[in-house]
């Protein structure tokens, strides 16, 4: 039983890491209806830029600020060059555009900073910590704390500021928001910039765990089932989905993996997501689309 609890807690904490990536998705999907496949590429770009700056002797917070500035510039560029010309196109078209975008960002990041693996040390020891009889990874605890802080920050932004009000208005009804004088392009740029910021945080944590390299952009594939379980439109959903996927994945690995020869972590979250979808076709917290003919 203790072992089960330990695996479960470890899984839940690992799931928070998935949620971090998924939150970036949700932000963009809510505000601009774009299913942003390039979120993984943005995570890679942010982490790679940060690490390369640090390696060139820029201090931590300086590198953080510079990378953030780069992410904002990227967001502005994306809004101007991709979103604006594609306004009013079908969601599938926009999705494919972000696929193209992910190629551009990945290619550019590696062309700019090189393709070798960089180590990233955030100064947190990845040692197990004993808490109430369970061994927990210190790093995972730190990641969970960061995620909680990030979510608190984002909910403050969304619920307590004037900017958040217009963000919510756009998410609710883009046309209506436009009619009351909210500038849609600016909102999109802001949302992509915030998603870039979330990508930076996710990139630092994932980079510290896996090393900053190309495979970082593949975390998008881990975040997808999380997103789908939680629903595309809900930040709570992203967190809950992350916890479910993290816990389910760890438990399956420990209890189911040996039966079938292991290595199931690639497809198990997807099978889990499918099960959830068959019961709730729009995810746990997603808005159910009402269709009119």
């Amino acid at each position, binding site marked *: 039983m203790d072992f089960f609890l330990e695996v479960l807690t470890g899984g839940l904490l690992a799931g928070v890491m998935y949620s971090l990536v998924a939150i970036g998705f949700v932000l963009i999907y809510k505000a601009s209806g774009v299913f942003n496949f390039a979120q993984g590429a943005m995570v890679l770009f942010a982490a790679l830029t940060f690490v390369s700056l640090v390696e060139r002797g820029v201090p931590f917070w300086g590198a953080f600020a510079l990378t953030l500035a780069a992410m904002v510039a990227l967001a502005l560029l994306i809004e101007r060059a991709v979103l604006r010309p594609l306004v009013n196109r079908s969601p*599938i078209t926009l999705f*494919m555009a972000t696929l*193209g975008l992910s190629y551009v960002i990945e290619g550019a990041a590696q062309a700019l900073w090189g393709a070798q693996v960089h180590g990233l040390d955030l100064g947190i020891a990845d040692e197990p910590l004993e808490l109430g009889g369970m061994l927990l990874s210190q790093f995972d605890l730190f990641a969970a704390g960061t995620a909680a802080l990030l979510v608190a920050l984002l909910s403050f932004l969304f619920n307590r500021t004037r900017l958040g009000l217009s963000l919510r208005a756009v998410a609710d009804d883009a046309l209506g928001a436009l009619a009351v004088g909210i500038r849609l392009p600016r909102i999109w740029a802001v949302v992509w910039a915030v998603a870039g910021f979330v990508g930076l945080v996710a990139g630092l944590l994932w980079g510290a765990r896996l090393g900053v390299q190309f495979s970082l952009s593949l975390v998008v594939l881990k975040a997808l*089932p999380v997103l789908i379980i939680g629903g595309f439109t809900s930040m709570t959903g992203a967190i809950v989905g992350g916890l479910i996927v993290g816990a389910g994945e760890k438990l399956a690995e420990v209890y189911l993996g040996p039966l079938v020869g292991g290595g199931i972590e690639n*497809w198990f979250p997807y099978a889990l997501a499918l099960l959830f*979808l*068959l019961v709730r076709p729009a995810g746990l917290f997603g808005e159910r689309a009402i*269709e009119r003919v």
Partner: protein
Amino acid sequence: MFYTEAGQFSGHYRADRRLFRLRQDRYALYALLLFAFAVVPAIGSDYWLNAILIPFLVLSLAGLGLNLLTGYAGQLSLGSAAFMAVGAFATYNLALRVPGLPLLVGIALGGVFAAAASVLFGLPSLRIKGFYLLVSTLAAQFFVQWLFTKVSWFSNDSASGVITAPPLRIAGHDLSNPAGRYLLTLGFVVALTLLARNVVKSELGRNWMAVRDMDTAAAVIGIPLARTKLLAFALSGFILGVAGALWAFTYLGTVEPHGFDLSRSFQVLFIIIIGGLGSIAGNFLGAAFIVLLPIGLSLLSGLLPPGVIDAGQLENLQKIVFGLLIIGFLIKEPEGLARLWQQLRERARVWPLRY
């Protein structure tokens, strides 16, 4: 002027429904087929056949398979490579375990297995829609790759799941030389393209397009959604399976499960985006583009003084160019190269007049 349709009237509904209504189109098609079947194997060098024409044909076929599902029936899929893998591994196992099975039957049965897998992973499409469906096709992608790597029975217990081509013989003719493999591939591509072209002009094809444009509306006017969607998955899976078998056995010769990974799925998706969603000819244009672009880029970089661009940078550059092209096409010409080709034809019809 050269393309005038004057005097070509359909005297019968059947004449109106034929695949190529214009005489010029038919003659051009016959000429193209004659050229492809008779002239190309005679004059094509081994490099051209092996490195350009065979992958071009196979990728066109894979694009065709995905286009039926995504471009015509509107079901987004990122699992094309999985169904290609099923086709390849099924064909390999059939050739291995069923003695005396003719090659053509083996490849076709491989397609049938892929169709079955595709229908299985298409079942959730009855309940979930749009982007949520991605999860089903991605599940197929990762599960199939895992299955063929883990269960060594599928690759006859070979190390790391590598499979090699069965003997390519049809009725005693050896087809293992480049020209033979080219002809085998071409035969499948032509047959399946004609099949697909017929299907999309049939009632089923129109049902697919209705489902694509709005499936609720399609259901309201009485189109059986379940059957229509699953048939799209089945036919798409069949074509992808055949394409996978051809990719493994006429192009590569040996293949491992890793050869059918997610990036192959993306490649097929890019073919249909660049070529044109909802178009048959577009698959060929898109595949030609995808095959020729890397070659063109490396030729271009060869013109630069050595040392300016190394192999790694070239790959990054290729990615950037691909990405920019995708975005550019979606912005400027969402219907892809097929639309440009269509415009060219319209111009040729009235040339030298403007309209």
